[in-house]
């Protein structure tokens, strides 16, 4: 039904419709896409679901919405401190006072950076419904579930950004190499071969010794060294496509190079590009996790799966919930991404849907 409506409003290319149908018919890929899509959407609003800040506070006749924006110091709610309000304590206090004031907390009442420590009790604390740490805490008393959710958001954002930049550069250069060929192609091939030899990990270590690595510097380094892979695929696809009749026809009609590449060649190599996307996402997530695991990724205390893995490994006997949570989460996400990838490849398989058939 949705599909029908879409078709009416956008008048989708019949081929795209076929590919979409085929994708939907591959059940595990399709459902993975639905679940992963839901996870991504939910994680965008993670602050509303998993947070130490309250959703709504009703205090002395006024409503407060602390989730986004500046901190609200404790003194606003009649507490005796100037730093950010501890809303869990506030909730407990209001309940005790039994007055009109109330606090509405998110389902998971801990942020990814909060150390919820009780002197005399030694973290990691085990999972407990009573404390609200549904997956327990890590070695500094931070909620594992909260760190998982925010870690997922960061990893996914990182992988998507990497994908976007790598593909933009890789496709542009790759198709130019394939289209013009000759000396241009040869020169870029050698350049890329040399560039490929730069050891990524060392570059990251060097960068980390000069500045504190953050999301953007890490992504910049990764893009600077990672765009080359896509060029090879695009180069070969373009070589293949540019000799086809429709390109010759366009040329005969006097189309510019830009038009021939942009409007004819690239749309016809889309199946190559699309089928690589899920695997690139998986690689991106894996990469950031690996770097964090080794300690060269995002600086602490950024929530990160890699950091949780290394912690989990350290406490594998004494606090198995850390490693179990993160290992299961990574496995599920990577398996789903791979299912989607398989389904996409299948759906776009040119053996079934090529223009020239």
């Amino acid at each position, binding site marked *: 039904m949705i599909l029908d409506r879409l078709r009416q409003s956008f008048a989708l290319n019949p081929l795209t419709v076929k590919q979409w149908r085929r994708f939907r018919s591959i059940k595990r890929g399709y459902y993975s896409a639905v679940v992963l899509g839901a996870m991504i959407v939910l994680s965008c609003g993670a602050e509303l679901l998993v947070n130490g800040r309250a959703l709504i506070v009703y205090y002395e006749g006024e409503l407060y919405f602390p989730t986004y924006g500046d901190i609200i110091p404790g003194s606003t709610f009649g507490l005796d401190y100037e*730093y950010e309000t501890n809303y869990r304590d506030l909730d407990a206090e209001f309940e005790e006072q039994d007055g009109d004031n109330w606090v509405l907390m998110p389902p998971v009442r801990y942020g990814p950076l909060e150390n919820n420590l009780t002197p005399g009790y030694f973290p990691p604390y085990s999972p407990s419904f009573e404390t609200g740490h549904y997956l327990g805490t890590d070695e500094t008393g931070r909620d594992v579930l909260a760190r998982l959710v925010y870690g997922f958001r960061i990893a996914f954002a990182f992988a998507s950004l990497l994908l976007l930049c790598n593909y933009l550069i890789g496709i542009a250069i790759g198709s130019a190499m394939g289209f013009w060929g000759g000396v241009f192609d040869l020169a870029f091939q050698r350049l890329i071969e040399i560039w490929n030899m730069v050891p990524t990990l060392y570059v990251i270590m060097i960068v*980390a*010794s000069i500045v504190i690595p953050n999301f953007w510097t890490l992504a910049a380094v990764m893009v600077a060294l990672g765009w080359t892979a896509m060029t090879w695929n695009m180069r070969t696809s373009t070589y293949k496509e540019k000799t086809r009749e429709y390109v010759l026809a366009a040329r005969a009609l006097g189309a510019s190079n830009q038009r021939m590449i942009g409007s004819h060649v690239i749309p016809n190599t889309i199946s190559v590009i699309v089928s690589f996307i899920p695997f690139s996402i998986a690689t991106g997530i894996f990469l950031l996790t690996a770097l964090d695991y080794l*300690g060269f990724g995002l600086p602490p205390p950024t929530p990160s799966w890699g950091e949780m893995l290394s912690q989990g490994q350290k406490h594998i006997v004494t606090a198995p919930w850390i490693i179990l949570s993160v290992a299961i989460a990574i496995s599920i996400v990577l398996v789903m991404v791979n299912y989607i990838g398989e389904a996409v490849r299948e759906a776009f398989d040119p053996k079934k849907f090529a223009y020239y058939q």
Partner: protein
Amino acid sequence: MNHPAKTIAVLATGAVLVSGCGSETNIYLTLGVPVEPYALPETAIELPPIEVLEGDGLPDVLPEDLVWVTNEDDPVFASPDAKRGGTFRTSILGFPLTLRRVGPDSNGSFAGFLRPNQFGPIALHPDTRRAIPALATHWAFGADGRSIYYRINPKARWSDGVPVTADDFVYAMQFMRSKEIVAPWYNNYYTERIRDLKRYDDQTYGVQGANPMPAGEMHANYGIGPQPRHFHVLNDDWVANTNWQIEPNTGPYQITKVRKGKYIEMTRKADWWGDELKYFKHRFNPDKIRVRVIRDPNVAFQYFLKGELDTQGLVLPQYWHDKARGEAFDNGYIAKYWFYNEQPEASGMYLNMADPILSDELVRFGIAHSMNFDRVITTVLRNDYDRLSTFQIGFGDYDNLDIRPREYDLERADEYFDAAGFETRGGDGIRINKDGERLSFQVTYGTPLHTDRLVVLQEEARKAGLELELDLKDGPGSFKKMLEKKHQIAWMGWAAGGLAPGYWQFFHSANANKPQTNNLTNHANPAMDELIMDYRTSTSLEDRIRLARILEQMVHDSGVVIPTFRVPYTRAGAWRWVKLPEWVAPRTVASVFSPFANTGGFSGGGLFWIDVDERERTLEAKSDGHSFGPTTIVDTTYRVDPAG
């Protein structure tokens, strides 16, 4: 796309391969090329006589007014119940790259097995910290305040039976100064710090250092050990030729078996010359010490649990509390020891005064009051560590125990930050001053193992409106940044050692604001400079102690160092058959199960013994399931109450 991931995987495999090449295969044999026996050059180079600079030099004739002293009055610290015999089995993470004591690659962890078996003229008593006889029976101090004379024990022998004479000390001086040993640090030390060494007769020699010091310090700094003159053939090939040679030594153990990549076995000398000495009696009891190569600490721990290693260090909270549990512990087959010792320690946050905001002492005090170390100790550190109260501690009388560290106190932090002009808080709760500068600092540190401590401090500091940005680098990378003085706050600990605390390298203005010095705070204060120089040149112990305490107070008052934690103990597990004296160990030991003399700079090791009968009984009980009841010994004799 997956190129970077591949690089990481390849690097990881590479690391495994490199660390796996412990065993030496003969490259010629594997290549099928006939092996030519390496021709040992018979001739050694001629060593030049000891060069003495203008203004230095010992008298040609032994001065007659020397007061020869010895020390037979200090208490004995070994147990008369100790029994000889048995094999002590321990492990090491990697096979040594050489069996040499000096030269390239000789500073690995196996040096800890070689060097303590090479005795010097004197040793330091592990309780009183005073000199006790070792190779020398008597010593005397020269009138210039920087020379010592030693009289060698005529019974002292090298492991091959050759007597130790004054010539071996003269040779040591020439040897350590020679370029052939490829050891620049030693070359420099034996030229810059040791200025002259002279033989007076077979048993007597004198040594002169660069500057005057109190007696104990002089022994520690100038009391160099001998080298076996009859053994070394010093020439250009010395480093290669001696790499796997077993060099004669003067200590109780000598290497008797080497299986490359697997283990090294040392055997107790049956008629060791030192057995008769008062402070060496009943020590160094196991007949054999077998050092196995086990490349992973977790695997080594499993070997220990199985009873294939006799002892295991348990200093880390994770090991002591979590891993050292189970049947073997509950039934008392393995005993746990927690021994509070007196070892020098200096860990802290070093605030860089070259930073415009940190140059304000009010900010520094505010930061100190925003650090909730108590919270860290009572949670992540499991109440194991103590708060360190001063820049450095653990030097006995030198310690200034009157200083109390600044405690976590948000009100006082508020006052200090307000006074420093950081009166308002931004939207994120972090303070800002009139110029819009945020109260935010980078904390540079070098090990992921400390991240747990720092994130707790970070969260607690936010309450004071202070932001700490964590700058984790690899170990060498972080130290490089600190030495280049590019940090704001350095989080690190010094491997403190020696008999007395040092101040010149850490706080003198000569080391401030220049790279590659240990003055990480860029602290410069003329009044303090003067006291530091007085402290350095003073030869009176009382005076030095008084000055050290004043200096420590000045460091505290300046607020450039926020002392962090101290680990005031050593912990270990040992199978039931490894016995210790009732008093466990002297106060200065770094490890209670050290098989050799030196541990932590003092001669407090080698006190335990292996009870072979007890071993039989324990193994029997283990197979029968018989329990002795758990044994955990916590010795707090030398604990300094952190609360003052």
